[in-house]
């Protein structure tokens, strides 16, 4: 290489360096490299995100947060970067760089800045680093735990510095754990032991992984960790974690089972009334649930800006819609068929085909998207490793409330008294002045209405489509029959026990076999106790 050439190269390098430094300074003072976030060059985007995070700019956090949530946009008219407040149309804008309000703009005039999964991970780490100084201890703790997966030496250094000053005990503990995790990788056995001791008792997933590595052996059977003390400490810590995990898992399985059970109970309660109390084999029961779910969809479509509250409107609406359709079916068809239960099967099966096709014609055969309100998403953390999902919790509560309300209605109201009277002895009830036809219509409407409520709950769990009902009808019949026809408590106990049994079988047998086993169990159970868990006693049982 000739000298002048080398010189030229050196000179250009120096210039480049100077330029970079200048850019770096300019960056901190005036402008963040937002332009690099456009387009589909994800490497450039990653660099720009690091630069923004390192800039120390007061806007950095807002920008990165907006980028994570997909709220960072480019206004097409003037190529200005803006942050929208929420995904509404038109959206309220603020300037990304200075935070000033920019009024509103229709979404069509904005172009979203696209990110991918790798960038999401990077953003999460960068934001966590910024959150370490957050005044809210929960945010600080979440930030520390987010950094545990892959801490850089710089992060560790800042944690070592911050830990002694930390006021909140939980956060300090979390910091110790992350520091301990870093120490486990140290060359000095004493440090490693210290690390193991620091992480002992933490339920963080990362801790488990690192400890497992410490006690692992190579294919020849020799331990990978040379220090005996470290191995013993790690083994003890690991056993403690595993024990607690097993306990949490048991609770979790029970929860899974309960939530499945309450869904079954909710789906079957309506049937327990129409089938159990009235003796109508209502094959259209599933379609009543479908109507409830579609009502939820329609309510959300009517109130696009009130998704959070829509459920509370959908609940009474679904009850009314399904209930009214139920009354129409009862008055139009079922009332001609009393005393011929098997013919109600035929007629209501026809009704169910009809209703499915109605829904297909109105809403198309495609599934409809029902949004989940914010307050129903995510999970509730109990302790440090037990997570219960909110939507399941709410459905358990909802289902229990519906059940209690129904029980109260049947027991304490005049209508309830008449319903029970008619179901026990129709002729006698009529002789006593009960308008049996009117009671029948209301009972059928009530059962259908409850099915509609189940539909609201199911719209939060599964597809809202024309086949929604069919997938629950068989399970509903199983629950009612297993519990004992005509007994609401039986339905409750049956639904819950089937749900829990299913969830305990699933880990060993797999989802399909678990279901088969439960069905076989029901068949065998009915052989032994032919009238279900809570058989009806007295004369009406023999009819």
């Amino acid at each position: 290489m000739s000298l002048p050439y080398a010189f030229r190269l050196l000179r250009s390098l120096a210039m480049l360096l100077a330029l970079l430094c200048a850019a770096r300074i300019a960056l901190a003072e005036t402008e963040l490299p937002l332009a690099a976030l456009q387009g589909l060059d994800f490497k450039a985007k990653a660099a720009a995100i690091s630069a923004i995070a390192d800039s120390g700019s007061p806007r950095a956090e807002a920008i990165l947060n907006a980028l994570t949530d997909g709220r960072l946009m480019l206004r097409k008219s003037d190529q200005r970067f803006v942050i929208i407040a929420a995904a509404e149309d038109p959206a309220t804008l603020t300037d990304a760089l200075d935070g000033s309000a920019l009024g509103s703009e229709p979404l069509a005039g904005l172009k979203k800045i696209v990110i991918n999964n790798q960038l999401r991970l990077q953003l999460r780490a960068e934001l966590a680093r910024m959150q370490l100084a957050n005044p809210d201890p929960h945010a600080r703790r979440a930030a520390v735990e987010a950094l545990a997966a892959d801490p850089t030496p710089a992060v560790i250094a800042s944690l070592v510095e911050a830990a002694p000053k930390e006021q909140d005990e939980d956060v300090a503990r979390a910091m110790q754990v992350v520091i301990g995790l870093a120490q486990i990788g140290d060359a000095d056995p004493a440090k490693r032991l210290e690390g193991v001791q620091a992480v002992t008792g933490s339920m963080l997933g990362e801790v488990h992984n690192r400890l497992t590595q410490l006690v692992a052996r190579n294919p020849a059977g020799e331990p990978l960790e040379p220090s005996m003390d470290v191995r013993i400490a790690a083994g003890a810590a690991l056993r403690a974690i595993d024990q607690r995990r097993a306990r949490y898992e048991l609770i979790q399985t029970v929860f899974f089972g309960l939530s499945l059970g309450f869904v079954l109970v909710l789906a079957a309660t309506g049937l327990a009334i129409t089938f159990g109390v009235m003796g109508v084999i209502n094959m259209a029961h599933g379609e009543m649930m479908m109507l409830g779910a579609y009502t939820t969809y329609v309510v959300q479509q009517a109130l696009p800006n009130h998704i959070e509250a829509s459920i509370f409107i959908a609940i009474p609406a679904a009850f009314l819609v399904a209930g009214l359709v139920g009354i129409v079916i009862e008055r139009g068809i079922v009332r001609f068929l009393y005393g011929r239960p098997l013919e109600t099967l035929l007629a209501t099966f026809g009704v169910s085909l009809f209703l499915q096709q109605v829904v297909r014609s109105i809403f198309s055969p495609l599934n409809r998207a029902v949004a989940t309100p914010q307050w129903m998403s995510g999970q509730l953390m109990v302790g440090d490793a037990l997570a219960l999902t909110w939507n399941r919790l709410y459905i358990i509560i909802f289902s229990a409330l519906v059940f209690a309300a129904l029980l109260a209605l049947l027991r304490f109201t005049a209508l309830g008294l008449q319903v029970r009277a008619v179901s026990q002895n129709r002729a006698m009830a009529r002789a006593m002045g009960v308008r049996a036809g009117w009671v029948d219509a209301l009972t059928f409407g009530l059962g259908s209405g409850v099915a509609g409520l189940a539909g609201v709950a199911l719209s939060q769990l599964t597809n809202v489509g024309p086949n929604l009902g069919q997938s629950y009808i068989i399970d509903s019949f199983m629950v009612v029959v297993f519990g004992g026809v005509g007994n609401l408590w039986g339905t409750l106990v049956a639904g819950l026990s089937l749900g829990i049994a299913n969830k305990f079988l699933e880990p060993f047998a797999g989802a399909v076999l678990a279901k088969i086993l439960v069905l076989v169990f029901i068949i065998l159970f009915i052989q032994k106790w032919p009238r279900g868990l809570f058989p009806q006693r007295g004369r009406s049982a023999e009819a």
Partner: protein
Amino acid sequence: MKRTFKTLVTSMVAALVVSTTPVRAEDTIKVGVLHSLSGTMAISETTLKDTMLMLIDEQNKKGGLLGKKLEAVVVDPASNWPLFAEKARELLAKDKVAAVFGCWTSVSRKSVLPVFEELNGLLFYPVQYEGEESSKNVFYTGAAPNQQAIPAVDYLMNEVGVKRWVLAGTDYVYPRTTNKILEAYLKDKGVAAEDIMINYTPFGHSDWQSIVSDIKKFGSAGKKTAVVSTINGDANVPFYKELGNQGVSAADIPVVAFSVGEEELSGIDTKPLVGHLAAWNYFMSVDAPANAEAIKSWHTFIKNDKRTFNDPMEAHVIGFNMWVKAVEKAKSTDPTAVQKAIIGVESPNLTGGMSKMLPNHHITKPVLIGEIQANGQFETVWKTEGLVPGDAWSDFLPESKIIEADWTDALNCGNYNTVTKKCSGQNF
């Protein structure tokens, strides 16, 4: 009342007589559309029926085919597999259609296959499937496993750095075969057996709590984990909802799906799904002139500009155009002539390339990987260079890598064993 009943019976008897009398071919060319309009598969298949009606309508506006108008014969096999076979026979024997566009599930295709082979019909099958088949009478315009599954795994392995794999699927033949191929492929690439978790669930599975919790546990072992999902249709919504609720984000454990497209997403609240992936040969969001035009005519035809366009619909567009070209080339709708003429026919796909009908009755397609966006569309994050030729017989299964399909005069066989030099399992 008595009278109405008698009329009903009389009209039914009359209908029996009419329906069993063969209708003579007139001056139209009939095209059969065999997609379920009711039952469980109506969700996916109804749109394909509309797509076919649109394509036939457009072709007629262009002057039809061979100087004749095209006429669609739509039947409803109602998601009932034996009914598929019956309807296929009805289309071929009674209506004498020139070609049939239809089927979605593998079992429906398997059910009609003997009928098409017996009566020498033409079936254009537009859905991604498990491969391991090449029939003289079927043209597979959807993806074979090497046009969807393998590139998706390559992407995750090379671009995302995934080390641990969950292969989750519905328990039927497509996921079983695809997972078998993927398992062999992953082991080939040095992935250890304990880093692969395989899980099967029944159709329409709705309670995913335990499985998602297991996936979470499997994914917390310190290695980057991804889920390769061959979960079918209806089970996806509760699966994704459970993922979202248990806090499994796409950044932690991405899910790449082979059966979730724009149409399925239109029935899901997609906000919690942003970042999860899908592998297809077409995305509605692809910026290409042909695509924009197709979407526009679709919206005009269906009179709703919110409707989505998806991969199987594109497959029908390609398949239909190929059939039209082949008929023009052969100057006849005779199935044997069309079978000869169609091999090598090229037709533009909607993402800007030229797809070609291969001798094994599969076509060349691009492979795209997209991330789900909040608006229910996919954003392409990766794409193959050029088009991938569909492979009927996977190279990763020991039994099938020695089998070849070639319907040109060279072999004229769908299952030619290159070791024994024999052509096996032909029905004609």
